[in-house]
């Protein structure tokens, strides 16, 4: 029997090894934070309980599209439209608003609550890069929520149509306004939600604040315009997140809002018709609101002690 020169089956520590590979720097840092944040918005990579609310709201946002497609499928011979693309975002504004109210506070709040920010900012990442990654994550998540049902309707309508290509030829002009208004909605509401959500690490407070922003602007603007549309109050819709997006959507589709025939119900379009402010003014209002909101987020992170 011969002795082996080294003991067999020894436990050894491979130890610490140096890394000689590439370092991709700042862009990689932003990209990594963006991807993780985007998935985190939908609760992917987190608890099951974190997935429930975002996916429930995404499903609700799809319901009008399903109804439209159901009607189209049932009414085989005629082309029947109950929900047009320029109306869709108004139908799903509350699911979308509740979505940002639900996810924006956690998107930025948990990093504050867990004191993770010093770890992020000791890496090749500026504070403005952090804001960019979070803003991009929330906006693209919201954009997906808004565009998926619109795409479903467009494709569904085309398939139900006697000639899909024909449908496309007649309706392709809707695609640009659908995307433009969806993108504007996403950036606008995300910026506002982050401005409110980044102020505190307590999500009930932040979520309540975001819901209040939508609800108060909507109700107050609508009441003021319906009761005193002649005076300076007609500009009150400029601070309502719902009305501004509605105005921009109509503007991109080239639709002039019409006052409602009866004075019972109010719709966003009805309010806009009563206020009678040129639609491009709402675009300016949106740009100003986005700028103010992002500057608020910037100040919040610039002043934060780490």
């Amino acid at each position: 029997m011969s002795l082996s020169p080294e003991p067999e089956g020894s436990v050894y520590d491979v130890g610490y090894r140096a890394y000689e590979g590439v370092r991709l720097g700042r862009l990689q840092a932003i990209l990594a934070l963006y991807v993780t944040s985007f998935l985190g918005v939908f609760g992917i990579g987190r608890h099951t309980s974190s997935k429930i609310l975002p996916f429930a709201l995404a499903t609700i946002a799809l319901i009008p599209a399903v109804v439209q497609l159901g009607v189209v499928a049932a009414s085989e011979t005629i082309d029947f439209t109950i929900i047009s693309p320029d109306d869709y975002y108004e139908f799903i504004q509350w699911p979308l608003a509740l979505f940002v109210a639900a996810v924006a506070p956690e998107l930025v709040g948990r990093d504050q609550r867990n004191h993770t920010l010093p770890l992020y900012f000791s890496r090749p990442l500026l504070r403005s890069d952090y804001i960019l990654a979070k803003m991009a994550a929330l906006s693209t998540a919201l954009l997906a929520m808004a565009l998926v049902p619109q795409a479903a309707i467009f494709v569904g309508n085309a398939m139900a149509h006697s000639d899909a290509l024909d449908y496309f030829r007649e309706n392709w002009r809707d695609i640009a306004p659908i995307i433009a208004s969806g993108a504007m909605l996403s950036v606008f509401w995300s910026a506002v939600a982050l401005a409110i959500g980044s102020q505190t690490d307590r999500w009930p407070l932040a979520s309540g604040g975001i819901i209040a922003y939508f609800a108060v602007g909507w109700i107050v603007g609508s009441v003021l315009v319906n009761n005193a549309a002649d005076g300076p109050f007609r500009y009150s819709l400029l601070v309502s997140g719902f009305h501004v997006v509605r105005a921009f959507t109509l503007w991109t589709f080239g639709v002039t809002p019409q006052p409602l025939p009866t004075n019972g119900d109010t719709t966003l379009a009805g309010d806009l018709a009563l206020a009678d402010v040129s639609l491009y003014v709402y675009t300016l209002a949106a740009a100003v609101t986005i700028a103010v909101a992002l500057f608020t987020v910037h100040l919040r992170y610039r002043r934060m002690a780490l």
Partner: protein
Amino acid sequence: MCSMAFLATHALTKRYSSVTALDALDLELSPGVIGLVGANGAGKSTLIKILLGLLKPTSGSAQLLGFDVTRQEIDLRQYVGYMPEHDCLPTDVSATEFVALMARMSGLPRSAARERTADTLRHVGLFEERYREMGGYSMGMKQRVKLAQALVHDPRVLLLDEPTNGLDPEARDEMLDLVRRTGQEFGMAIIMASHLLTEIERVCNYLVVIDAGRLVRSAPIASFTERTQVLVVEVEGDGSALVRRLHEEGLTVRQEDGRILVGLDDDRTYDFIRDGIAELGLGLLRLEQGRQTLEDLFRTPKTDGNDVALA
């Protein structure tokens, strides 16, 4: 490589509204395992945060690894690992997911990040538990993850702020051993802040002492440890007679809180203490090599009575 110092600060100053955390600090250090010692509030954390670019200095400048910390922060931070003093881990993700994210955020490609995450977590001693959510981790495990995320991208310098914060004695020993191995066996430059000199002694080979934002001393650890050779004696009976006697023998002696601290010059010191106690008829309760804290070493010596300053 340029011949610039590993770490250099020039008149580095940080003022808060009412407090001066760093007061015109000048430092020039070579790579090594550097202990940064000072009482709480001495400016250790402030210095580390300025080196990371987390804080902007009020005036003065600092270079780490040859990068200016305010102007080249992005380049610098690819090569720096930071372990903060306080809790900084999310509770609802696993160590593996979190450390891999931190690796990618340091600039590593995805596959390298995954591979190094596994290696680094093994290096710090986290095994099966690395797939569990970190909310359920013990303090010791959390500190290991904090060290792992600082190491995962193979930085050229590791900045550790009180790495044994909140650990029980056993976990503290393990953490210090881990830091010592990382610095001495794997040759990584480390700057470790602590308010406990004994910890620094075990891990570091160079010591920087700051107090009230000013540099007190900066020297190899050996030049300090000579001065920290202190015996702690506790006796039953009148200790001051023993203090007088040892003083007459020419030893450096100080009495405080019922303990007698004797400077250890050579082995004869033990003989003097033994003989003194025997002849005075005192009961010896304790005789051990002093575990000095900074407070012992840098305290302003009292000069009244029989107290004689050490060091």
